[in-house]
């Protein structure tokens, strides 16, 4: 039997690269979707508002694991084979999009009404109101919880291992099956995740202090 040494550690470190890549994909995909959802939530159009509300509600009330399974097996039904890479991309983006959308909706709505009225009185168009008055203030409010949720995304990429995607968690399982040293293997995996997540946690906390946002974040997990 192999023991847990440097080659095994390097193997896990290499797999951690996929954890990072997956997270980045979820940030980009989820960010784009979240932006659309946030603006739909605050739009004048009732249908758009309701559609975005329902989307966010549904995706926030579905386990990410179920989302992964549904996309994974659903894609197979429409003839895309069982492509873990694609499934994880789609599922993580839908999941992250719902939370980003909700955080940013909250940030937009947190800007006091007077700001809308004042900018309207100054003859700003809706676009100009968003561009020069509302969004700059929302970004301040939204940044700490957004960074906080980015930590959740990194941790949740571990679920991709369950549908067979080779990232850090799956690599640890693989190494554990070879070495039978679960404590060392999983503690090292935990340490790698911690090193990825903790700087963001600290950043989120510092931003919260710096930007004087004392309101509890919409996503507390």
């Amino acid at each position, binding site marked *: 039997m192999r023991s847990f040494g440097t080659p095994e550690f390097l193997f896990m470190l290499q797999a951690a690269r996929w954890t990072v890549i997956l997270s980045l994909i979820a940030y980009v995909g989820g960010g784009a979707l979240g932006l659309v959802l946030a603006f739909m939530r605050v739009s004048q159009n009732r249908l758009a508002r309701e559609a975005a509300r329902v989307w966010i509600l549904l995706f926030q*009330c*579905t386990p990410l*694991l179920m989302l992964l*399974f549904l996309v994974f097996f*659903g894609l197979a039904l429409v003839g895309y084979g069982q492509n873990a890479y694609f499934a994880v991309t789609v599922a993580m983006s839908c999941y992250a999009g719902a939370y980003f959308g909700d955080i940013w909706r909250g940030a937009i709505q947190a800007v006091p009404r007077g700001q809308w009225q004042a900018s309207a009185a100054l003859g700003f168009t809706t676009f100009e109101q968003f561009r020069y008055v509302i969004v700059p203030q929302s970004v301040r409010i939204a940044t700490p919880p957004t960074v906080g949720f980015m930590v959740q995304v990194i941790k949740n990429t*571990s679920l991709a291992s369950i549908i067979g995607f080779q990232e850090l968690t799956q690599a640890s399982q693989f190494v554990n099956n070879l070495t039978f040293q679960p404590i060392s293997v*999983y503690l090292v995996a935990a340490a790698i*995740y*911690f090193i990825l997540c903790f700087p963001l946690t600290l950043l989120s906390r510092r931003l919260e202090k710096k930007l004087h946002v004392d309101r509890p974040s919409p996503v507390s*997990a």
Partner: protein
Amino acid sequence: MAYTFQFAAVFESLDLLAKGALLTIQLSAAAMVAGLLFGATFAVLRTFGGRWVSMAIGTYVEAIRNTPFLIQLFLIYFGLPSLGISLDPVTAALIGMSVNCAAYTTEIIRSGIMAIPSGQIEAARALAFSTTDIIRHIVLFPALRVAAPALGSQFILVMLGSSVVSTVSADELTATGHILETQTFRPFEVYIVVTLIYLAIAFTLKLLFAWLDVAWFSRRGRL
């Protein structure tokens, strides 16, 4: 390629799914209670317990909050037996979920405690409240009131996160879904039904927490 959905096979096994859902609810409820009790205790200790206690609890909270639940679960289920402690899947799941949940609730309740103006505690001291009374009436209850909405959403995340314990073969809702999948070869239909059950549980919890929030806190006034 046209695909015909066949839900009949899934509906035949609704009783199995109901059993799985029951375990999901039981596990989540137990983790919520444990999370609330330990979270409240740790939050108070972290605020008033002195430097070392506060540091120890802080380390626990950060370690849990910055690592995936799945890895924590593997450490408990696969790691502990190599130290001579063997756990059955459901116990391992329960311990994992509670340990995980408590870290988040500690942080949520602590931020509730931080929101209490220090003048209130000083005022209570001046009125000769005992420390226990101060913690109970001036600190903990108002802190819980502030934290209630965040605790509610955290508890829903705990319930949703419980699907992960299927990986250590605790027979909850997701694991039951796996079993049905291998029996029926209809994974998509199975997981649609399972997802709908999760949605139903999550919506029920949402309503329940909203009602509890009003019932317990609103009439006594917000902070």
